[in-house]
């Protein structure tokens, strides 16, 4: 599960020795996130976002469990109990604002984590399984976030539930029965609210389980690094603890500062005022949009305003939206370049940044009203999104001439002269 030069676990306290002989849990932790896990010595701060994602999940679970103690999942009282949390429950406002902003921060760090992987080719062999499991986590996160947003039973909650379950209604023949089955009625109601609460409580623990698989799969080949060159010997690695526990700890400090700024000074910045109006089935909010982290996908959904042969526009939009995520499952086999890191891929690097801008444009259009010029811009940007993965990446891989790679991680860090003598230097430390 690790490199042969990984430190061996030797319990120092008799108690730990006693536990380790009966249940090797201390050994497991030591080998996973302790001094027993050797990591490339040259990771930059973009490698913080995996740990930060786990941290964000923990914040969500803790604040969520606390709020569940004060919330009532019934359409008659749900909206009121959320206000009860805000006004009456001791520190309830803190729990709710931390939970709502925590969701946004969770997506911020996960998106950075995903784009890190895209730029540095983290999805390439032998780490395809890490990438695929990461996408499963992403899908679970989106489902969890969507259901959580329904729980306050405000206007955006209600209409979000209606629109998102309406997506399934676009499927021919079985669509409407599926939509009715998901909602437990013909429109969102008490049955929908109850099941969403039940599943919203369940899914974070499913996510935690898939995260364990994600990390397990990562620890088979070990982390990649900014050069994309594989670890060649002990001189290329440092133990996870204390080196990266310290680096991740610093990142966590920055994360908490920004998180606190949002929670204490701009808690509603990323929310919608309409959700402070109780759900009303007879009136759609003038401008109905999902939370910001769904905007790029929402823009793709709305880009299809025309029928294509026999496929109606509605179904096309839904298919395109799901395809935009499912496409990423095929990424390890679409980008056939043997070079991992974008640092050594001059053409890929340019197209990567164009993709980043494209997704930001999609995000902006997804949050804008459904009118020109945003519809047209969404159409062009959606087309480019698919072209990037299906056409540009395979072509770049075929025609690009990568820059010369460093001989090893150590050479990239210290220069050519150090490479041979490095083992001795590490030993001397």
């Amino acid at each position, binding site marked *: 599960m690790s490199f042969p030069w990984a430190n061996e676990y030797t319990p120092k306290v008799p108690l730990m020795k006693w536990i380790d002989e009966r249940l090797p849990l201390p050994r497991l932790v030591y080998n996973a996130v302790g001094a027993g896990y050797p990591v490339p010595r040259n990771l930059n701060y973009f490698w913080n976002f995996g740990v930060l994602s786990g941290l964000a999940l923990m914040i969500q679970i803790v604040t969520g469990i606390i709020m569940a103690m004060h919330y009532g999942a019934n359409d008659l009282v749900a909206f009121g109990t959320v206000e009860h949390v805000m006004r009456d429950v001791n520190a309830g406002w803190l729990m709710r604002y931390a939970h709502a902003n925590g969701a946004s921060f969770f997506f911020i760090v996960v998106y950075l984590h995903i784009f890190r992987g895209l730029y540095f080719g983290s999805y390439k062999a032998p780490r395809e399984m890490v990438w695929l499991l990461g996408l499963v986590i992403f899908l679970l996160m989106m489902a969890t976030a969507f259901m959580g947003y329904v729980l306050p039973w405000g206007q955006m909650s209600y209409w979000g539930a209606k629109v998102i379950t*309406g997506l399934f209604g676009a499927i021919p023949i079985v669509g409407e029965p599926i939509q009715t089955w998901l909602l437990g009625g013909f429109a969102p109601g008490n049955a929908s609210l109850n099941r969403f609460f039940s599943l919203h409580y369940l899914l974070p623990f499913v996510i935690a389980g898939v995260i364990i698989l994600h990390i397990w799969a990562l620890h088979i080949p070990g982390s990649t690094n900014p050069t994309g060159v594989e670890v060649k010997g002990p001189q290329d690695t440092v133990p996870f603890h204390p080196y990266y526990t310290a680096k991740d700890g610093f990142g966590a400090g920055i994360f908490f500062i920004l998180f606190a700024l949002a929670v204490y000074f701009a808690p509603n910045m990323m929310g919608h005022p309409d959700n402070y109006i109780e759900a009303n089935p007879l009136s759609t909010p003038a401008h109905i949009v999902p939370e910001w982290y769904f905007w790029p996908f929402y823009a793709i959904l709305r880009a*299809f*305003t025309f029928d294509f042969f026999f496929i109606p*526009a*509605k179904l096309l939009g839904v298919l395109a939206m799901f395809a935009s995520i499912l496409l990423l499952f095929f990424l390890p086999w679409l980008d056939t370049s043997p070079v991992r890191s974008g640092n050594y891929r001059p053409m890929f690097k340019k197209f990567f940044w164009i993709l980043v801008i494209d997704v930001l444009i999609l995000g902006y259009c997804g949050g804008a009203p459904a009118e020109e010029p945003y519809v047209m811009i969404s159409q062009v940007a959606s087309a480019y999104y698919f072209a990037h993965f299906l056409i540009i990446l395979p072509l770049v891989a075929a025609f690009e001439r990568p820059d010369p790679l460093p001989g090893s991680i150590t050479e990239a860090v210290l220069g050519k002269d150090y490479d041979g003598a490095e083992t001795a230097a590490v030993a001397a430390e």
Partner: protein
Amino acid sequence: MATLENTASADGTAEGEGVRRRDFINIAAVSFAGVGGVVAVLPLINQMNPSADVLALSTTEVDLSGIQPGQAIKTTFRSQPLFVRQLTEKEIAEADAVDASTLRDPQTLEERTVDGKTQWLITMGVCTHLGCVPLGAGEGENKGEYGGYFCPCHGSHYDTAARIRKGPAPKNLEVPPYSFTSDTAILVG
């Protein structure tokens, strides 16, 4: 099991030669357990379908006497919005002027209303795209480019017969089952 197989081999029965009685029992047992498992899951899935109280058919009676030509009201049927609208002569003429066969969901105004009561357009107020409530029934609301209804969520335009004309919605606004109980009242459902 292994011992038995070994015994069988020792008897001279070569492995992989034909289907053994034990193979059949094995497959039959596992299949039966599988079917049992699926049957056991069915109620677990079906419990999510609408419960009896939700399914209980409700009917809604609507009084039309207060609705002037060009006016519309919003009410509810099965906890979803229902639009009841009295069309003006001009709106009827506009709807009839269109060749229905050119539409995305081809229907004439006559097919969407009751004989002799063409001016009464009764539809669900649920956009057939993703289920928002279209605008146009209330006073002063945006009626869209075709003078009927306009869905603000994703920009679907419906004409004066509530037929889809532009935007992502695939179907005309649904006409629920209803009948006239008198000249000025309908029973929906």
